[in-house]
């Protein structure tokens, strides 16, 4: 009798959240909203990404990045947050690790703010409200580079 393993599923798609060798991309979520963190967590884990930590403000996000480094692949960074805003945290993370992959996720879509974030080293910028498709597309374009 043949088992399932004898028929490799050639149509099975590799989830976007897995690296070519099969381990998940590790994500740090920085957002002061528990709602957004939960929403991102659900979207990302459903596609194979692994959320390794969550931080509630920019300062905590920067500290956690240093702590996790090099075992973190992508950071999502909110902008409007208490203690330290996301732009400052982005700059600090980029100073610490110039190869960091940070995706800004903000409800603010002002052109000069987006430009400022990209110049500071952010790899992408997602404007809230979030939806699954939008988040996964941007993530894929960042991790596949």
């Amino acid at each position, binding site marked *: 009798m043949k088992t399932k393993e004898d028929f490799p599923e050639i149509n099975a798609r590799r989830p976007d959240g897995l690296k070519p060798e099969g381990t998940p991309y590790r994500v740090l979520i920085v957002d*002061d909203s528990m709602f*957004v963190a939960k929403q991102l967590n659900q979207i990302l884990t459903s596609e194979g990404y692994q959320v390794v930590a969550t931080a509630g403000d920019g300062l905590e996000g920067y500290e956690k990045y240093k702590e996790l480094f090099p075992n973190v692949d992508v950071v999502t960074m909110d902008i*409007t947050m208490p203690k330290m805003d996301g732009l400052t945290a982005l700059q600090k993370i980029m100073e610490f690790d110039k190869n960091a992959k940070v995706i800004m996720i903000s*409800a603010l879509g*002002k052109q000069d703010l987006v430009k400022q974030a990209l110049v500071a080293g952010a790899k992408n910028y997602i404007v*809230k409200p979030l939806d699954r498709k939008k988040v996964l597309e941007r993530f894929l374009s960042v991790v596949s580079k």
Partner: protein
Amino acid sequence: MRVEYINPFVESAFNVLKEVLQGDVKRGELYLKSTSIPVMGVAAIVGLAGDVEGRVLFDMDKPTALKVASVMNGEELKVMDELVKATITELANMITAQAVTKLHELGFKFDLTPPAIFTGENMEVSDQDVEALIVPMETAQGKLEINVAIRERG
């Protein structure tokens, strides 16, 4: 308060609510309220700072807040817990941020501060000498009032 300020809030409230609630949203008639504002039970506040100062208050009753948060989380939420509060707070943040983005494009420069939420019975938020414009919004989940008070610095 300048009328130019209010339209971006009406538009962004309409767009964001429609998107996150995935349903029909109806705008009610705008009206003015002065000084003390009795709130309906759940109030999220976002502060504005820059060329102007002011605040935007999102006001709704508890059943509406629970229903809105349930839709936004894709699960039924029955008690006013931290997740419900965080969801309503983020809704306020998204609507204000989208309005601020539009105002920015029109040449008004100001930013927003992280939102806060208040819940309770017979709660009152009072402002000194601030006249607020109220934008009522009807959704399938209930009525929300967006209360905008902005004044120029100087």
